[in-house]
């Protein structure tokens, strides 16, 4: 790649321990140990994505922040990524910095909204993104470090420091890392990135800022309609407020586990059939205690196949004041 010099200030440390303690003391970590972001490691990451250090990934105008590839690479090294994960981190950062992903609001909010990263396409198997059992939890290096990298960028580069510009009252454990893949091989459905305009053999990352992580647990229903009604009840219990800035484009994400998928499969229901059932009900009276689900288009219902066998569950990820943005993963050819 072009030999543009790294711009970040370089600090010398006696040893690894000295570096760790200094980074913690400077407020440059999420509280967990980090990998030392040496110039050599950072350059290897930039090479993996074919990006110059000063390549602009996005901006946060209200914070007077410009996020470069170098910023992202330093934080991805610190998060424990491998160089071949870095193109996924770049796509996630670009998605999060899209105007409608609303970085300022979603990372400053009292509600402690979390940034969910969903990976689609061949890159999942190439780098080992977990899509099945346990995919939202610990134990998978790619999932853990990619989600962590985005959060470190948000903290270190986008200035979302808890108690300062990050005003979250409680924040969330999902803010350490929240990344998983769609189980495309285990599902008959069209992958989310294909529904959003990419080819199946392309890789893409969708970032969704989520205010509430809830689930529809339904061990009883045996029909698509019954399962959809359980999802609808979860959506109405929480509600989704409309917002002028986002207009009709508000999104919510349903992460459907295999125990629910099988009933949709048996009935021949596609993702679009689920939307066709749910969307008209958003305009109906939500009933006592129910809240309005302010999604303006049926395409705003994002559906992802993921998770493992056993639990009859669909995770319902309700948005903060942002829409889900999908960006392509571009590796250095």
């Amino acid at each position: 790649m072009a030999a543009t010099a790294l711009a970040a200030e370089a600090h010398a440390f006696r040893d690894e321990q000295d570096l760790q303690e200094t980074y913690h003391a400077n407020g440059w970590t999420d509280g967990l140990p980090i990998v030392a972001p040496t110039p050599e490691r950072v350059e290897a990451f930039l090479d993996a994505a074919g990006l110059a250090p000063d390549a602009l990934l996005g901006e946060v105008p209200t914070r007077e922040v410009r996020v470069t590839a170098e910023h992202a690479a330093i934080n991805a090294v610190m998060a424990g990524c491998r160089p071949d994960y870095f193109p996924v981190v770049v796509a996630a950062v670009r998605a999060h910095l899209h105007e409608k992903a609303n970085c300022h609001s979603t990372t400053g909010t009292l509600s402690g909204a979390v940034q969910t990263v969903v990976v689609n396409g061949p890159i999942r198997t190439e780098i080992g993104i977990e899509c099945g059992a346990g995919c939202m939890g610990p134990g998978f290096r790619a999932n853990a470090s990619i989600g962590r990298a985005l959060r470190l960028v948000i903290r270190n580069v986008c200035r979302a420091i808890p108690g300062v510009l990050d005003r979250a009252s409680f924040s969330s454990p999902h803010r350490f890392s929240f990344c998983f893949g769609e189980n495309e091989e285990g599902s008959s459905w069209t992958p989310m990135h294909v529904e959003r305009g990419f080819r199946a053999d392309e890789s893409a990352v969708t970032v969704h800022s989520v205010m509430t992580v809830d689930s529809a647990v339904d061990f009883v229903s045996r029909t698509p309609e019954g399962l959809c009604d359980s999802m609808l009840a979860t959506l109405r219990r929480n509600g989704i407020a409309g917002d002028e800035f986002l207009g009709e484009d508000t999104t919510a994400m349903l992460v459907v586990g295999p125990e629910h998928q099988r009933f949709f499969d048996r009935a021949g229901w596609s993702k679009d059939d689920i939307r066709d059932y749910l969307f008209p009900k958003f305009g109906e009276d939500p009933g006592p205690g129910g809240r309005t689900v302010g999604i303006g288009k049926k395409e705003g219902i994002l559906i992802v196949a993921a998770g493992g066998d056993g639990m009859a569950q669909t995770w319902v990820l309700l948005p903060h004041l942002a829409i889900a943005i999908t960006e392509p993963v571009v590796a250095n050819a």
Partner: protein
Amino acid sequence: MTDRPLIGLDPTSGPLVRTDERALPSRPKSLDGHVLGLVANGLGESKLFLDAVYDELTREEDTIAAVRVLKSSVSVPPEPADWARLTSETSLAIAGMGG
């Protein structure tokens, strides 16, 4: 082993460097004679709350005037036209949020 120091790069975007002359003004001792900007973000009861603040302030202090701004979206800062009103017509502002 080597004596060469370990080099680590600063992961931040650096300190905020202002290129303009903005600075935080000092707080006035009195609101007398000021025009107060009241900016409600639209969440919860923020507008009602700031209306009540306005009523309370002007009940006995008829020398205080106010410009009320209700953001068009809770998601983003005020529109440029609202910023213009606040900066040209007011001398103090209170931003309120609700939940």
